[in-house]
């Protein structure tokens, strides 16, 4: 019996020993359901998937806060919805406004994704051209996200590495100029290493060399204005001239075709006018729809197949921009001369009988839904891509930079007129007396609105970099007031006399203030 006991005791001890020694193995489990950076970035396909993830932040931004909030309450549109208004649009935002937080956190999410990509991409074993092209894409996107952060918030924390853990993450602000320099460095690298439009698979959704050049020029123009450093006009000119003269990108001959293509979710790879855009997909289950269609399309009754929320009308100021040439095809395209008066798609649209006298009753008409292929139309979503950079913008930037650096030269007029003649508007170079530098400056400022209206942040940033946002606001507000009626003065009071000079920079979101002890608030909040 004693032997028997001993055997069991020995077995028991043995079991303990075996167990203890293999304990660490036993307690090490490997995830089976999700991908970890450790086991990713190994093939080119995986790198493609990872870079697609960095682009995804654009989608987050443009389907939501960037879609129309910025073009409203500039000189282009006025927010006329009777219900409670988004504080971003009526400029009553403060540090607790959800969209201030959304913009901030979505941009920084994009930054983090770029940084994480850049950290891990080194693992990929491909030739240096391919690898640099991947790095260039991520740096392009990081630069683009920081460009918006610097424009909207001023000095911001500059993170060029992904955080490793949620502990000790406090980081102080970096001066705006340094942030801009970082944007330039990223964009320059991108311009150098990105594939051209023709070689880049997936362009214009994936960034190409031409797009990166154009965005860098946009950054330079912003720096010239915001940092008050006119020398950046020359820098812009330096990169825009070769891009335009190379003729690799052209204008689409028909202005309206651009928007029909967008509505039908097809690409124009011939002219390549849309140099860079954000991909959306109509499939609501992938959550990649674009939500802007219902807000900035011509009005349509709720519940119908076109459904537009009818929350924006164009301003009288904007309407005025087209009065110098009513043959301009952009006039009745960008300012809808009709609305959908029925829920039934087969019934004809109702055209406005009065133009001008009720200008404020007209909706933006740039993004129309008639050519959508995914039917039935979802009342509040569609799969149309959103343009970020078009070639006409490049031409207008060239014209502006040339005018600032060299005055109203042939180069400046040629670029401007190519955009205008496409729209069947008269050419300024045909005028008997050509405009002066100062006059051309004003013309370009209005031309940019005629051509690029409602395209997200474009107009808002233009007004800021030119330093004329308050003048414009007062102008629009006064026109609306003169218009009279309850609507006119209500909208005017609501929108255009609220903004204060310090509000040119957004507040730092409250949550960032609470959780990042090194953060400081922008003045005036």
């Amino acid at each position, binding site marked *: 019996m004693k032997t028997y006991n001993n055997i*069991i*005791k020995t077995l*028991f001890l043995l079991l*303990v020993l075996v167990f203890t020694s293999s*304990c660490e193995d*036993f*307690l090490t*489990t490997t*995830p*089976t*359901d*999700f*991908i*970890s*950076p450790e086991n*990713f970035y190994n093939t080119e396909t995986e790198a493609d*998937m990872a870079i*697609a*993830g*960095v682009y*995804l932040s654009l989608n987050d931004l443009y389907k939501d806060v960037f879609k129309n909030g910025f073009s409203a309450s500039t000189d282009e549109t006025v927010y006329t919805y009777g*219900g*409670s208004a988004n504080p971003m649009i009526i400029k*009553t935002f403060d540090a*607790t406004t959800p969209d201030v*937080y959304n913009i*901030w*956190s979505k941009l*920084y*999410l994009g930054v*983090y*994704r770029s*940084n*994480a990509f850049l950290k891990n991409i080194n693992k990929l074993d491909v030739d240096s051209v391919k690898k640099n092209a991947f790095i260039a894409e991520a740096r392009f996107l990081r630069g683009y996200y920081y460009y918006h952060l610097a424009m909207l918030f001023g000095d*911001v*924390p500059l*993170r060029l590495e*992904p*955080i*490793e*853990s*949620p*502990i000790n*993450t*406090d980081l102080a602000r970096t001066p705006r100029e340094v942030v801009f320099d970082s944007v330039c460095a990223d964009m320059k690298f991108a311009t150098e290493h990105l594939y051209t439009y023709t070689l880049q698979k*997936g362009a214009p959704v994936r960034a190409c060399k031409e797009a990166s050049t154009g965005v860098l020029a946009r950054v330079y123009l912003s720096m010239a204005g915001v940092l008050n450093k006119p020398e950046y006009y020359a820098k812009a000119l330096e990169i825009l001239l070769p891009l335009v003269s190379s003729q690799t990108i052209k204008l689409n001959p028909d202005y309206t075709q651009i928007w029909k293509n967008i509505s039908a979710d097809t690409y124009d790879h011939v002219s390549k006018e849309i140099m860079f855009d954000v*991909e959306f997909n109509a*499939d609501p*289950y*992938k959550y990649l729809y674009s939500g802007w269609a219902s807000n900035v399309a011509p009005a349509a009754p*709720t*519940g119908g197949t076109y459904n537009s929320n009818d929350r924006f009308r164009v301003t009288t100021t904007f309407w005025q921009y087209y009065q110098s040439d009513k043959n301009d095809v952009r006039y009745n395209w960008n300012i809808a001369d009709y609305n959908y008066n029925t829920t039934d798609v087969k019934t004809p649209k109702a055209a406005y009988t009065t133009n001008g006298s009720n200008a404020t009753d007209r909706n933006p008409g740039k993004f129309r839904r008639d050519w959508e292929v995914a039917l039935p139309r979802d*009342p509040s979503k569609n799969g149309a891509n959103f343009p970020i950079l078009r070639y006409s913008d490049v031409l207008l930037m060239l014209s502006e930079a040339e005018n600032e650096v060299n005055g109203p030269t042939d180069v400046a007029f040629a670029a401007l007129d190519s955009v205008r003649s496409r729209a069947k508007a008269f050419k300024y170079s045909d005028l008997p007396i050509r405009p002066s530098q100062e006059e051309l400056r004003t013309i370009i400022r209005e031309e940019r609105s005629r051509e690029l209206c409602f395209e997200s942040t474009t107009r808002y940033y233009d007004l800021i970099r030119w330093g004329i946002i308050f003048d414009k606001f007062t102008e629009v507000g006064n026109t609306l007031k003169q218009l009279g009626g309850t609507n006119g003065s209500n909208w005017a009071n609501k929108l255009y006399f609220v903004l204060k000079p310090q509000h040119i920079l957004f507040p730092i979101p409250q*949550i*960032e203030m*609470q*959780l*990042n*002890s090194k*953060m400081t608030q922008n003045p005036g909040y």
Partner: protein
Amino acid sequence: MKIKLLELKFVLLVFLFTAVSTQSFFAQQRFNLVGTVVDKAGESIIGANIKLKEEQKGTITDLNGKFSLQVFKNAQIVVSYIGMEPQTLKVVDNKPLYIVLEASAQSLDEVVVIGYGQSTKRDLTGSMSKVNIDDITKAPVPSVTDALGGRIAGVSVTSPDGQPGAAANIVIRGSNSLTGDNSPLYVIDGFPLENAQLNATPPEDIESIEILKDASATAIYGARGSNGVIIITTKKGKVGKPTVSYDGSFGMQKVTKLVDVMSPYEFVRMYNEVEPVLAQSRYFINGLTLDSYKDIAGTNYQNEIFREAPMHSHNIAVRGGTEATKYSVSLNYMDQKGVMVNGGFKRMQGKFVLDQEITKKIKAGINVGYVQSDTYGSTPSEFGFKAETYIMTDVWGYRPIGTGGEDISEGATDPDDLPTDLRFNPVLNIKNIYNDKLNNNLSANVYIDINFNKYLKLRSTLGTNISIYKNSEFYNSNTKRGNPRLSNPEGVNGQVIYNENNTWLNENIMTYNRKLNKNHKIIVMGGFTAQSANSSSYGSRAINLPYESLGLSGMDHGKPQLITAKTSEWTLASFLGRVNYDYKSRILFTASMRADGSSKFPTENKWSYFPSGSVAWRIGEENFVKNNFKSISDLKLRISSGVTGNNRVGDFAAFEQMAGTYYYNGNTYDAIVPASLANKYLKWESTRQDNIGLDLGLFAQRLTLTVDLYNKVTNNLLLNSQIAPSTGYRFAMKNIGKVANRGVELTINSVNIKTKNFQWTTNFNISFNKNEVLELSEGQHSYSSSPNGTSGTSFSPNMYIAIVGQPMAQMLGYVWDGVYQYSDFNVTPTGAYVLKNDVTCNSPSRTNVVQPGYVKFRDLNGDKIINTSDLTTIGNPFPIHIGGFNNTITYKGFELSAFLQWSYGNDIYNGNRDIFESGRLTYKNMNHFATFANRWSPDNQTGVFPVARGDYEGNYASTRSVEDGSFLRMKMASAGYYFNKKIVKSIGLSKLKLYISGTNLFTLTNYGGYDPEVSAIKNALIPGFDYSTYPRARTFTVGVNAEF
């Protein structure tokens, strides 16, 4: 020679005779009686006294509970053991006896199951409670948790609503964790399960439930002990001839209350105020006037969807065995139809338990159970991205009549609704929803016990639990989610998801139990355990199914949607040890330590140590008490302290995860994005708990009283905490934050009267708990939550808030100040009403058009406008105290029992009122609660509610919907009769009891919703929220317990 031979023969003969006669004499006078003494659970009782009644002779049982004794035939023997009811037996023959002793009521020697062992009440040093199973199952309940509420001090049991099969939410001594799980660890027949499905264990099969509360009791479960531990032990075989028992019951359930909704007249009157123009064309046509609607009955959909529903259950068990072999086989069937049509809960269980003695020193056993449970039908509190998507929204809100007073109760949708409207005929919807949650669970455990010698014992177990859960949903065209229309582009749709959970466990526990001498007793327990679990979930969903009649089989013809495919696993290895030391039965020490290693944490934090210590002083055994206070039968002071943990985080929460999908330039690329941040510093949440308790027994334990005071502080909360968004993340799993729970518990048990035929017992318990958030993330002062999540489409996005220095959940909102009266306005020459400048305006901009009768809020900061700075805490969902009060009276065979449960001082946010007492434009086509008839109007200026369209069109919370949730409920009452043994025997039975019982008999409360015991959202941060919940039923049952 001859004589000598004769002599010899005689001697031999005499000798033989003597021998024989002696033999026969002894056979008649004394013989050797052997037997075994066991307790109710079949465990041998060591040291039980066996005494002959007539003489001073006796013996005690040995280690195996066995004895042998020389007895006379027909002698009377008395078998006794402390804490057990003594038994007197008459010796008939020399067959071995098997004696089962029953514990005497409220005995100090009642056996209690503790973590990895057993003890007696006398020897306990920590705070734990044994549930009296007989008491709580006097009225049949589908699951024990349904009956547990109010029974045990410090244990809060809240069922979310009246949904059949819904799991009750059990919280022991307050919630510790903000974003984590606060449910206790369940140990079922020794098998610890974090996600135990308690409704899978039939109450009839349960032998005992022990609830471990303080750290001294729970620390042996280490990393999983901080929410308390509930130990459930099921019934085993007993020595004796096979007994067959049958428990059957049949009950009828009926909702306790309907909410009054508007009559057609009141509805049309309201509609006319909200939308006067449309009202003309809808209701005042064909010569109809408002008064015409007084004669139209309309439809109250509550009457259509609620029914009297039957519930019946049957349990049959065969138990028996010999000393060497004990077995138990049981079958259980339960069928509960829901009081809401087309729903219910069904359960079938088969179980087999075998205990076998292999040699004198080795025992082994097996315990196998298979359960299938099925919950089906609509779940009103589910599916809520918007108020209009809930089940009850349609039940209350669907119009009682249609245009021109027509009957619209037959059609699928309201003919006047816009195509975008979400509302749907509730009766059709509920009758056609197919939502089935089928759970198959197999548990199998084997054990082996080896007694090395008198003191040392090893128990090794190996167990597995396999659970397959299938959730099938099918929405045909007669359901809200399946009817193809503009607001439902998915059309007819369905989904099937399978979840599989496999857990295995190995435990090896060595126990050394020795009485060193008269004064010192020691029990040392040590062991190691290993547990591992893997889970997987696979399923798919399809929409726009073309062949509706095929049901779910037609999913392959539809448009495939998201495919579910998830797998995960975790492992846990532990070393544990405990020492109990008993000095003269006066001072008792317990110290325990557990080391847990978990796969969920990064290498450097894998292992953690959870110590505890406690001491009890049995003051009642001291001479100064014994001599001076004769009535004190027991007085014990207990002090304990210890640390426990909580590891309820995702299996791979410490890893950086990548995920995502993106369609991209016509080609389908999966886009991969970093989805969650790695935290290599992640570790266990730890809870330190201190407890002081006092047990007092008076008058030979007729009256016992237990008081416990505790202080529980949880540190390093595993919090999905907000981090600075400039990091790229909004949330990350961090160990941050601190929560305290402090409280007092009191339990009194009393045998008020005890005579031969009459007995009256009373049990009373009350508990107070105070919850406080001590810390959140760095710099964070509060943490907001909403019933809708962050998207908040129907309720305020910051309706619930956890503020440092206050409870972890409070309701946040405006203080409702009634409505604006005429006196608040100036009248302009045109007759318009303009708010006076010194009167607060209910919106941020004074230009907002406030009119008489509009909803009014209190301005807290004096700026005369209402904005976020006027938000304040408007309700506390935590009760000041909860408790229960039970009385049982027995007279001969009769037994009467009644149980009251209460909760005092908690607030409920009645979200239903935000919608159905609003009169908002948004909800204009919806019927409202009848109470909303008392709204302000020029003719009814004392109206309580805002004028039609006078409510704020937005999502906000206010004191208007906060209600006192205190209640006193007659939760259970039963009357039973045990038939006289003679009668029972004459019909071939050994026991027969018939009873009638009722549950939820009445509830005293001021709460206006269906039931004050409500918490629709399963989230510790959003307690006491009511929206579209399943009403609770009152049940009357008749039942029988029989044995033969």
